[in-house]
């Protein structure tokens, strides 16, 4: 079994117009820049992207939107930095892109639920707020809750530190963030890692088991330890 691939392009070509893509990363840690930059060149369109933040105008998730590849964004942080509008905010105003904004814990839990076979769950977060509007509510164990459904995707693009040929993955520090859950929630998971190993990772180093990973690509970033 060897999930390592030489060409990211060959793998990314499986992403068709209209796909839902989950993208790992929090701040600058764990963003799959190697994969995103190649995806931008391939230019599939009408994508739904699931990503924690699109606030930074120079980030690659934002660049996909600027390049007219994205029709819907599911995120926790959509506001562009500064007082002016970001390109994404302009497109939002013009109705060219759809937005679903979620509390970050609900965003995480919906993705986890998607991977864990939990079709829906109740959470107290968002109840009585604009982000809870239109959602079914119920008081459970004394807490007012909203009902949230599982979120799944076609492709997860994940950034990691090391991976073995079986597809087992190890992250460096907070590079982990959404990577492990997004990998579980998508039909096909592509991981870029700085180090692709022939030998198996020791079981105690594995933070994402092989079953969730389909393809491994060498990242163009450098190793920052773990």
């Amino acid at each position, binding site marked *: 079994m060897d999930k390592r691939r030489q060409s990211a392009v060959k793998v990314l070509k499986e992403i068709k117009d209209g796909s839902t893509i989950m993208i790992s990363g*929090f*701040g*600058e*840690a*764990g963003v799959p820049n190697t994969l995103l930059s190649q995806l931008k060149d391939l230019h599939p369109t009408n994508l739904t992207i699931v990503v*924690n933040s699109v*606030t930074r105008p120079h980030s690659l998730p934002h660049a996909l939107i600027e390049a007219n590849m994205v029709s819907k964004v599911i995120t*926790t*942080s*959509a*506001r*562009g930095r500064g*007082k002016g*509008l*970001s390109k*994404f*905010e302009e497109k*939002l*105003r013009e109705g060219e892109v759809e*937005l679903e*904004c*979620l*509390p*970050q*814990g*609900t965003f*995480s*839990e919906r*993705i*986890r639920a998607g991977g864990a076979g939990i079709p829906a769950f109740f*959470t*107290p*977060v*968002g*109840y*009585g*707020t*604009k*982000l809870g509007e239109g959602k079914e509510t119920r008081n459970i164990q004394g807490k007012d809750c909203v009902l949230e459904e599982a979120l799944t995707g076609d492709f997860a693009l994940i950034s990691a*530190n090391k991976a073995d040929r079986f597809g087992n993955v190890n992250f*460096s*520090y*907070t*590079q*982990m*963030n*959404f*990577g*492990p*859950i997004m990998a579980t929630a998508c039909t096909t998971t592509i991981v870029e890692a700085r180090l692709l190993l022939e030998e198996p990772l020791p079981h105690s180093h594995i*933070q994402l088991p092989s079953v969730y990973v389909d393809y491994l690509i060498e990242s163009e970033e450098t190793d*920052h*330890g*773990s």
Partner: protein
Amino acid sequence: MGLDKSQIAWRAAQDLKNGSVVNLGLGTPVLVSNFVESSRDIFFQSENGILGVGPEATQKAANPDLVDAGSRKVTLIPGASIFDSAASFAMIRGGHVDVTILGAFEVSVSGDLANWDSGAADKAPLVGGAMDLAVSAKTTWVLMQHNTKDNKSRLVKDCSLPLTAKNCVERIYTDIAVIDVTSDGFLARELIPSVSEEELRNRTSGNIKLASDCCVLNAPNITS
């Protein structure tokens, strides 16, 4: 003159209990960690997956893989752990964070919090972890300026901006006072010497009283 941001953060830091788990929001709240000695065993949680955030990293030691929720390159304290975002919000939503300290636009007399949507035209929303933290932490404190630049009170009868969570704020640290949110309305626990009770009332919307044992709010000069 009221307290500056560092002094507000310093004041809040005095109320943290040793050994507690604390999440700090962006802006003034994150300054609180500057005033907590390591001997106090306070563990700062960062919602991107850290329990035990240490001081900001020196440029030399900075690791781009080790950042906090405000994207600062940070260090870890002894005993720190790292986990994924679902585990991090399980920790938050499960009530395992003792105190969350957040910034705010408005806090209502019943403890409703508005801190995620300023209502600026055409700007997109940014909620991040604010709702999860405000709903779920055992205690929610707010650090904010008492008044807006055009002199409106940020302490209000009812929030005019979109809510983050209802009925969650227990204590507010402003540039002029320390205020508890009680079933009987705002209750000032401490007030800076240059502000009178009358001025406090004038600068506050919503019912506010002075606690019978209301103290003088003094903060040291802080040079950063």
